[in-house]
């Protein structure tokens, strides 16, 4: 069978716009999830290191649970299975949102937070204990010492592994298509279905993911290098 390449069709107004819309959703989905995952991951690490038994226990079980089950199952669980256990006010709020998108954000951020928490913990453990001691000795509370002294140093140490978590999250965001979030992979699939030009459609999607990931890691590395120059 003869396959004739048609790149012009892919970049035509209509399909070109589909790709851009998909890319835009992917950016929003990943961006929002990264922020939430960072916040949640930081909270989990702080709980895990707090020495308050119930919090430690909660954080450890959370991390083990979310790290050790497949993301697709988690996405399906949130989308198809979580209804009986979610509180009413939350469901009510959820149904007012774009529910597929919201579930995508919840699934990606709760999943990635478990990994970020572990990376951060190793970063914190590599900060000398005397830093915590010195800050507590001036009267700072545990949370203040974490927030102003320990975490800022830990974050800088874990930038390389954090970048790879961010990139994983961006790539994982394509799984949101399974519940109908119209992100980049979903849109590439649409273009393919309409044009039968699968090679072009998925080449474009691939290149978009690739450049997005490269930009993210380049940007963060650049920022980190600037920080390191002044403080270490």
């Amino acid at each position, binding site marked *: 069978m003869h396959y004739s390449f048609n790149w012009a069709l892919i970049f035509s107004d209509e399909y070109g716009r589909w790709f851009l819309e998909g890319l835009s959703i992917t950016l929003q989905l990943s961006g929002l999830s990264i922020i939430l995952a960072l916040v949640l991951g930081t909270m989990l690490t702080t709980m895990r290191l707090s020495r308050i038994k119930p919090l430690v226990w909660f954080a450890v079980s959370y991390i083990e649970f979310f790290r050790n089950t497949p993301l697709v199952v988690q996405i399906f669980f949130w989308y198809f299975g979580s209804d009986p256990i979610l509180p009413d006010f939350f469901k009510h709020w959820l149904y007012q949102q774009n529910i597929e998108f919201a579930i995508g954000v919840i699934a990606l951020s709760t999943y990635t937070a478990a990994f970020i928490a572990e990376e951060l913990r190793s970063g914190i453990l590599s900060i000398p204990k005397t830093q915590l*001691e010195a*800050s507590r*000795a*001036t*009267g700072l509370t545990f949370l203040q010492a974490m927030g102003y002294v320990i975490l*800022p*140093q830990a974050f800088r140490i874990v930038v390389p592994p954090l970048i790879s978590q961010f990139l994983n999250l961006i790539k994982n965001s394509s799984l949101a298509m399974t519940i109908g979030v119209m992100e980049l992979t979903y849109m590439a699939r649409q273009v393919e279905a309409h044009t039968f030009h699968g090679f072009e459609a998925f080449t474009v999607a691939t290149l978009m993911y690739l450049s997005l990931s490269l930009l993210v890691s380049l940007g963060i590395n650049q920022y980190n290098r600037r920080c390191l120059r002044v403080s*270490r």
Partner: protein
Amino acid sequence: MPLIEFRNVNKWFGDFHVLKNINESVEKGEVLVICGPSGSGKSTLVRCINRLEDINQGEILINGRTITGKDQNLNELRAEIGIVFQQFNLYPHLSVLRNITLAPVKVKKISKEEAEKTALRLLDRVGIGNQAHKYPIELSGGQQQRVAIARALAMKPQIMLFDEPTSALDPEMINEVLSVMKDLAREGMTMLCVTHEMGFAREVADRIIFMDHGEILERGTPTHFFTSPEHERTKAFLREIL
């Protein structure tokens, strides 16, 4: 009423009896030097005062009030007591100025401008007023330790604890730190200094205590301590160190 009082204080690290029945008191404005071989419990003794270490028996009082009770608010206690460590322990990610203003702003809720004014004044006082915007790594050890002293002073503490403040310094930097400590002593600060600097002890201390194996073996004025120590162990220690 003494400012600080130890009453029958005992502490164990596991099976190791690190403080043995300590009874001692420090008056306001007094400079107490604590010396002794390593492992004698002198750092631990000092670190119990701001509860970086907890004691197992007895009690410690500040201004007549016990601070070793379970309900003691540690952050309030620590805000009143400055401590300077052997390894400086400055925050490497913050500028010198921010190192000093962090606790006053976050703990005492002093405005940033006010805290910075105080910080700059303190930096002048310890002789490095022009280094405020540098990062700790850019300073020498002696300068870093002086920043650490300024950081402790910024909380306007009643008591200053020094835990071997010159032990990690190159010899030529020891004096710049000691001279700051001498100024502080002259201005009437209550100070407890764990140190091997016998010159400093002779010149500045009101009293010296000598510890070995968790006990206070010898206590007295510098004159007594250096000229007529009673305990054999003290004499041996002084022969080694002088």
